[in-house]
């Protein structure tokens, strides 16, 4: 993938993404998560399972997808919207290089604005609750584990961080592809996050196989086995499905960008 990375495209993308007013939105979900965590920490007993619920459900189903949505659709979609992408595409740079570079920039920024805050919030929150017996299976449902025991705060934090990193990768591939596929990427992406990731994936177990947040939770659960994370997939399934979704989304984005058209005025 390093051969596909174009430093000039990356430099333009970082400058473009951070110079837009939309960049102010990047930090908003992260700030809410950290403030929420601090407030709960100050008001709740440390042995209650709220850190896993808040950081798992809110962090992976809301914070991460929303931040990735804003950044992932910005890196390419904003240039397509305002037409400046033509200056990039009217050069011999391979379309795959454009897509991969922008994907890597978006992923890096999302990690900075979502995964790192998730880690900070997890460290602030402290420990979670772990099942005494088996870890969550592919068909496991939330709340089936009895007799929770405390797990260390740092273990949960690292687990959540690794899961969040995985989510950043997969979400950005999906949202970048969406920004090439449609001019309404934000609206479509928001609908996807709210309906699919927040609603269906958390209440319909079969949907989890196609849920990015559950890939992240599955990976997080592999590091810090915690029943309250409500992971519905094993680590292996999460990794394989995440890799397939990422590769498919990027391949589709390259193909769509290769067919990028400028519309002329009809006679």
């Amino acid at each position, binding site marked *: 993938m390093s051969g596909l990375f*174009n430093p*000039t*495209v990356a*430099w*333009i993308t970082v*400058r*473009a993404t951070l*110079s837009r007013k939309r960049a102010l939105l990047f930090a908003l979900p992260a700030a809410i998560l950290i403030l929420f965590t601090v407030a709960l920490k100050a008001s709740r007993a440390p042995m209650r399972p709220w850190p896993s619920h808040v950081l798992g459900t809110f962090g992976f189903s809301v914070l991460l997808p929303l931040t990735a949505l804003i950044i992932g659709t910005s890196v390419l979609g904003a240039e397509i919207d*305002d*037409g*400046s992408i*033509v*200056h*990039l*595409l*009217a*050069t*011999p*740079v*391979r*379309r795959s290089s454009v897509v991969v570079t922008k994907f890597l920039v978006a992923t890096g920024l999302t990690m900075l604005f979502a995964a790192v805050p998730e880690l900070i919030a997890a460290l602030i929150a402290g420990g979670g609750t772990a099942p005494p017996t088996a870890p969550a299976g592919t068909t496991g449902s939330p709340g089936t584990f009895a007799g929770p025991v405390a797990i260390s705060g740092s273990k949960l934090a690292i687990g959540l961080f690794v899961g969040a990193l995985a989510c950043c990768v997969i979400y950005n591939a999906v949202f970048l592809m969406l920004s090439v596929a449609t001019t309404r990427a934000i609206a479509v992406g928001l609908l996807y996050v709210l309906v699919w990731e927040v609603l269906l994936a958390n209440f319909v177990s079969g949907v989890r196989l196609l849920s990015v947040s559950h890939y992240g939770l599955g990976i997080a659960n592999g590091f810090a086995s915690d029943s309250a994370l409500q992971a519905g997939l094993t680590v292996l399934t999460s990794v394989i499905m995440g890799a397939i979704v990422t590769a498919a989304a990027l391949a589709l984005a390259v193909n769509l960008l*290769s*067919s*990028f*058209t*400028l*519309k*002329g*005025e*009809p*006679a």
Partner: protein
Amino acid sequence: MTIELRNVSRWYGNVVAVNDITMSIGPGVTGLLGPNGAGKSTIMHMIAGFLPPSRGELTITGPGGTGEAAPSWRNPAVYRRVGLVPERDSVYAFLTGEQFVTATARLHELPDPAAAAARAIATLDMADAADRKIATYSKGMRQRIKVAAALVHDPEILLLDEPFNGMDPRQRLHMMELLDKLGSEGRTIVFSSHILEEVERLSGTIQVVVAGRLAASGDFRAIRRLMTSRPHVFTVRSSDDRLLGGILIGRPAVRAVELTRNGLQVRTSDYGAFCRDIAVLARDHSIRLREVLPADESLESVFAYLVAS
């Protein structure tokens, strides 16, 4: 390098934007002329590889120095030899002019991007503003920095979509001289415009597009002569239309006079002579002119005349 269009059509659903156009564009300056909505931008986008023809074949001969005809659609390699100045006024406004042109040079993988950028910026007379952010540029300056970026890799083909938009007269003159110079160096320069006068200073050929079809093609001066000698129609209202009509029909520049309920419809082959004559004649015969209105001076009527010719 040569651009070849063979029976190229492009449609959007039921709307035909370009209809069965065949043309060959070689080295030199070629103007793509036509009224708004004629299909010029569609043709430019197809040549630039940003739109596939719905039917027909569009190729650029010699991309990569191979000498073989290659399509521009889905073929980024052509941009090693092609520079594009899009019509839309969208550039990376957060960059300085110098950063923008240097970044373009880097994207073209030029051996010395900074030197290539400095050369292109100097060519467009933008050195003084190169360290300012593009966001602070006027429309004409943005246009010039776009041209500098398109020229940075020294392309053999330069495509410019409405390049004179937003430029003041001095900038236009400079741009026209530049295009002329680039064309005389053996490059293939194609620009689109809907303003006929813009191309007067540019030598070379023009392709006139009307309603998606190629209406006229060839040497600009020949087509210009055809346009200037076309009959102009005036609507004239006066205190005595019948008397004025009788006087006007005797003038050599007047081809026909028709008396209508709304006044006179006068057809003349000499726009300037008629405008001078009518005022003198009316005064000499004590006729009061109430209205002298050119009836068909819209660009569309000029192009329609060319189509009919």
